[in-house]
């Protein structure tokens, strides 16, 4: 985001309003949210996912965890008992709601919640967190805005339509196979409020009158096409299936997809490529090149049997600027059960050997299944690199999705160009002969300094 000044921040620490008593009008859920939740996180996947407010190994009884999971997609509508200033209170809705499907994937979002709930509101009330709309399955939304326990129920707002409520936080913390995913689960606000209107209408008359007080939806009326797929450049991300292994990839030419060697390791192996945007397409291809295990560059190249039509081919970047806003697009977390996820961050480091970029690091959330996916510049949409891995601490077993490594596209560009034009693999074969300093970098070792010479 630009650095220009925003509105003056509210000085924290000013006295809060005393807590006001309230009564429960309704417990409600969005059936479509629960259906998508069951499809994505239930069944065979259920045992892998944890949404506890505490970390996986924290002591949470099975019953408590079961209760939390049952309540995950439920929200409570409360009526605040009128206070002394009731007469002076201004009537009317306090917020406008973004229509369902109006916010495209990749759009910036602002989450507002209070970490640890009512534990210490003087300090934590309404803290903000920024991210993007990472993925959507009906009213089940995902954002990479980082939220903490206690922010459940907090609002998530969009910049366009200005300040509209997009969703409420359903689960701030998600773990998959004990890996912190770094994504927050949201329930879209518009369908939830429609469910509230319908429920209030079927309760007693007093409750039905409250339905008129629920905030309106602004912007495009319903019925318009659901959210468009997001930024154009994200369309180049594809899902790559090789046997039982799947990962991500990026189309760099109508019949050429780049992915990781550990996704498609064997040359001549048949590969299935799925593109989700602009339409769902499945195309067969085969691996024409994969680096050797000894190569530091974890790369494979797939030639398709037919063109990937209507997919805008990415422009390859020539320069990298540390600190620039970047996005990773990949099929991590959900694989083929919904389209690619977009996560945002900055280019946190460009590692060079002899002034040549050989590794890119970002702060985007990267998870298993994102390997082989594209790293884009969020400003220009240029392709910066191919995501290869994130980080695991072998001592603690902790995984850090927000520290990940990509192969700069400048390492591959010329060789890919040569193969596209001549079918000749010589340039790609050079990737198997990377210099030792490059190998040292990708082994995450300290680059060899000048070997100290003995004084004798």
């Amino acid at each position, binding site marked *: 985001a630009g650095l220009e000044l925003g509105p003056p921040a509210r000085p924290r620490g000013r006295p809060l309003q005393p807590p006001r008593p309230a009564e429960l009008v309704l417990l409600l859920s969005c059936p479509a949210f629960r259906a998508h939740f069951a499809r994505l996180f239930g069944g065979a996947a259920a045992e892998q996912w944890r949404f506890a407010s505490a970390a996986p190994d924290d002591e949470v009884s099975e019953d408590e965890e079961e209760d939390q999971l049952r309540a995950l997609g439920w929200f*409570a509508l409360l009526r605040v008992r009128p206070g002394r200033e009731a007469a002076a209170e201004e009537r009317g809705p306090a917020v406008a709601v973004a229509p369902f499907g109006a916010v495209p994937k990749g759009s910036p979002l602002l989450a507002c919640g209070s970490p640890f709930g009512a534990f210490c509101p003087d300090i934590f009330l309404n803290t903000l967190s920024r991210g993007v709309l990472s993925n959507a399955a009906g009213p089940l939304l995902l954002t990479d805005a980082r939220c903490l326990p206690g922010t459940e129920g907090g609002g998530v707002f969009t910049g366009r339509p200005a300040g509209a409520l997009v969703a409420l936080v359903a689960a701030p913390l998600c773990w998959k196979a004990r890996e912190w995913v770094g994504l927050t689960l949201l329930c879209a606000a518009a369908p939830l409020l429609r469910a509230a209107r319908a429920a209030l209408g079927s309760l007693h008359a007093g409750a039905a009158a409250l339905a008129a007080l629920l905030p309106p939806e602004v912007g495009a009326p319903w019925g318009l096409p659901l959210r468009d797929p997001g930024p154009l450049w994200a369309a180049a991300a594809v899902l790559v299936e090789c046997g039982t292994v799947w990962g991500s990839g990026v189309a760099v030419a109508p019949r050429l997809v780049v992915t990781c060697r550990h996704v498609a390791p064997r040359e001549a192996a048949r590969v299935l490529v799925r593109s989700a945007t602009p339409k769902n397409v499945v195309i067969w291809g085969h691996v024409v090149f994969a680096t050797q295990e000894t190569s530091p560059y974890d790369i494979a190249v797939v030639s398709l049997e037919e063109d990937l039509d209507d997919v805008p081919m990415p422009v390859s970047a020539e320069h990298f600027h540390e600190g620039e806003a970047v996005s990773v697009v990949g099929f991590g977390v959900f694989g083929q059960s919904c389209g690619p996820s977009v996560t945002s961050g900055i280019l946190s480091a460009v590692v060079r050997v002899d002034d040549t970029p050989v590794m890119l690091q970002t702060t985007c959330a990267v998870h298993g299944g994102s390997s082989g996916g594209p790293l884009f510049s969020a400003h220009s949409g240029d392709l910066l690199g191919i995501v290869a891995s994130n980080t695991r601490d072998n001592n603690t077993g902790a995984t850090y999705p927000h520290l990940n490594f990509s192969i700069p596209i400048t390492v591959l560009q010329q060789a890919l160009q040569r193969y596209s034009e001549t079918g000749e693999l010589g340039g790609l074969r050079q990737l198997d002969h990377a210099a030792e300093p490059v190998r040292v970098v990708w082994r995450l070792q300290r680059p060899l300094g000048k070997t100290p010479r003995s004084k004798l």
Partner: protein
Amino acid sequence: MGRQWGPAMRAAEQTGCVVSASRAGQPEAGSWSCSGVILSRSPGLVLCHGGIVAPFLRAGSGALTAAGAAYLPGDSCSDDLRLHVQWGPTAASPAGRSERGLPGLCTPQC
């Protein structure tokens, strides 16, 4: 924070709140709390996460997964449920507004 975020930040500040749930007469039983969104100023309507009232359901949390249950009326929870809402000084409420200068003053544009 970029200029585009002004309205979103104002909306967030004016509607954000915290909600706590406890058992009447049993403060030692602890309390549950979460965040919420003020939907309407007067009468005050707040939407928050349902997890904090689940422990008070007369029929237990199984009622939440009963087939076809899309909503449960307020009296599905036991009578000892006590709910409180707290918001910031700039929230969409009269208390917030009375902080903004005394009524009667105005700022005519030149």
